[in-house]
């Protein structure tokens, strides 16, 4: 019998997942490569999702062959369209600015793909994410930031539960990008980052505004631009075309620069105000996932990231119930955007996160 632990590695043809596969092979695992074929707008017309083009598939297939591992492409088009892409459309239609990558990790990578991994007898699923896991004294698994602070991807993994963390491996999380490139070079793998992942991989051209105008026309209606006190300053061209904190492109003139403060889908209104009004000291997040598996019994101190690229800000996190928290920042924070995730950290440990509701 083959006693080596079997691991499926999610491959994209890029350097990070290729190195993840190489490291697992080196460590003596029985490795199988899988690539997700995701839905994209123009798939029907022979086009390809920007993250799984024929080129990338060919690259991933070649790398798998070079590493001596089997490789399969999993048709994920229908389930991806019905979950992640629909979520993206629905959230925008509800006046929010979603991050579909978290939803993809929750439902596709660490659910759908993990199921496929288990179906071929694998114990674990590995990805090329820059993050780490470590056992906690109580036997639970912690999610830690990747060692490379500039590459850390724990934000998009904050949706993972204990059950999932026990079945995942992040082989490149212990390395900085330069080391990953060096490992790639040592294995003779392509080191150019020509396939760095795209945030909105399902858009044919990267233009989410056009995509929404086509797929959620009802959500893209002109409406008023209002101040907090209800003065109408002009017309917007459709709420999904604006993000909180945006200054340019509002098409209104005012004595001082105005910024988007809030999106009000009920009134189809864009709320604007001055820079001084932009900062907020609290937010409410829903759909909260606590990585340790239970809601903390009392409020806790944490560094909170409100976007993938935001700097963590110190705050107090108050659990309101099983699903929601209130985050109170020590100092006002700009650009708090409903639909994005608020992710809580204690040092390098990712405690969990939720979707900003208001």
């Amino acid at each position: 019998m083959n006693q080596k632990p079997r691991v499926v590695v999610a491959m994209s043809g890029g350097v990070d997942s290729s190195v993840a596969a190489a490291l697992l092979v080196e460590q003596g695992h029985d490795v199988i490569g899988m690539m997700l074929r995701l839905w994209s707008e123009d798939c029907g017309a022979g086009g390809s999702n920007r993250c799984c083009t024929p080129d990338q598939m060919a690259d991933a297939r070649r790398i798998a062959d070079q590493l001596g591992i089997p490789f399969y492409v999993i048709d994920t088009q229908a389930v991806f369209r019905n979950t992640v892409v629909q979520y993206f459309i629905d959230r925008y239609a509800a006046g929010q600015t979603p991050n579909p990558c978290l939803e993809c990790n929750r439902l596709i990578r660490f659910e759908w793909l993990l199921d496929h991994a288990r179906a071929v007898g694998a114990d674990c699923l590995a990805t090329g994410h820059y993050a780490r896991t470590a056992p906690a004294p109580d036997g639970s698994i912690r999610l830690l930031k990747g060692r490379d602070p500039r590459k850390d991807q724990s934000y998009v993994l904050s949706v993972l539960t204990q059950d999932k963390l026990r079945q995942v491996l992040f082989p490149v999380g212990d390395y900085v990008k330069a080391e990953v490139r060096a490992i790639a070079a040592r294995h003779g793998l392509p080191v150019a980052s020509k396939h760095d992942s795209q945030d909105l991989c399902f858009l044919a051209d990267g233009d989410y505004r056009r995509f929404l105008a086509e797929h959620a026309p009802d959500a893209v209606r002109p409406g008023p631009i209002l101040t907090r006190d209800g003065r109408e300053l002009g017309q917007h061209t459709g709420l999904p075309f604006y993000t909180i904190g945006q200054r340019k492109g509002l098409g209104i003139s005012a004595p001082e620069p105005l910024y988007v403060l809030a999106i009000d889908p009920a009134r189809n209104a864009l709320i604007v105000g001055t820079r001084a009004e932009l900062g907020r000291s609290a937010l409410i997040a829903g759909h909260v996932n606590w990585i340790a598996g239970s809601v903390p019994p009392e409020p806790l101190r944490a560094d909170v990231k409100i976007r993938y690229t935001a700097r963590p800000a110190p705050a107090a996190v108050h659990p309101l119930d099983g699903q929601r928290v209130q985050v109170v920042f020590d100092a006002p924070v700009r650009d708090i955007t409903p639909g994005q995730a608020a992710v809580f950290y204690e040092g390098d440990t990712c405690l969990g996160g939720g979707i900003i509701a208001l």
Partner: protein
Amino acid sequence: MTRIYLDHSATTPLDPRVLEAMLPALGDLYGNSMSVHSFGRDAERTIEQARDTIARLLNCRPHEVIFTSGGTESDNLALRGPAQSARTDGRPFTLITTPVEHAAITVTARQLQQVLGAALRIVPVDHFGRVSPDALRAALQNLPPDGITLVSLIYANNEVGTLNPVAECAALAHEFGAIVHTDAVQAAGNFALDIDVLGVDMLSISSHKLYGPKGTGALVLRDGVDFLSSHSGARHEDYRRAGTHNTPGIVGTAKALEIARAELDDTTARLSALRDRLIDGVLSRVPDVELTGHPADRLAGHASFAFRSVESNTLLMILDQHGIAASSGSACKVGNPRPSSILEALGYGPDWTRGGLRLTLGRHTTQDEIDTVIDVLPDIIERTRKLSAISMS
């Protein structure tokens, strides 16, 4: 892990006796058959001996055998030759074919329609994938006067294994003055094909489907067929297929066909029995499965199924991880499977057309291997269904 190869309709391993026969042609017999000198004559003699052998086995005249690069090229020549001839003579060209042909026929047919304005008629098939002479007769009505009509009918379908009544259809087509081609790529190793008995004007075979080498095959082209070759060049094969002869491939084709013919009876008897054991085992142990294709009139080593609510891409992956090599009409290596067009033509609904599985047996297949597959398949199908349920919902 021991591996079980059940994809002989995709390709077969090279028979060691064929390899042995080919070795001189890969070595000393390197001359170009078209050359005047002794090196050329040596190669030419080898090729002509192979041609004689094939002509004898297929019961046609030696010069009616054209060596090609395989089944796809033979099919291309067979469709394009008459189409180009009609075009040159200014005569209307009609191509009558079926929905269960190999892509070498269907894609070429569409191209002839687009490029040369060929009129395309598709004869419907029954639930087994079989063409009835009555349906063909209907398609042969009202042909343009003074036109050239070609009927191309697959002998045995690659995906579901069903045999067509080629001889009967050929006789019928001839009544209407049509030329008849059959793609016998899957059939050539299974039957003692006789051109006279079949009554066809053209027939395609491929070497690697019958334990010969890849990249070589033949088209039988009977005398008197309107034919302007689409493969132009020097005067090889009497201007019907240009290009330097693939001497080793040609030798291998003759040897492979010779062996297949000599061992035909034993092989088909053994494979039919194993096939039926496999079919019975799968049908009795897996729920929601149908045998696709005709239960009796099918290729000896060919078992094909449709499983309800199964993604065959996933199924093939899990089978591969069990060391079982199989295939499907809808699977695809780049993760973009489409419903099987063959199963659609046979009348299967969307619950079934993504769940095709083809298990094709060969000379080396053992009963143990078949029993292993029967043992592991129910669990594999169940696991696949669980995954597929998510994707289909």
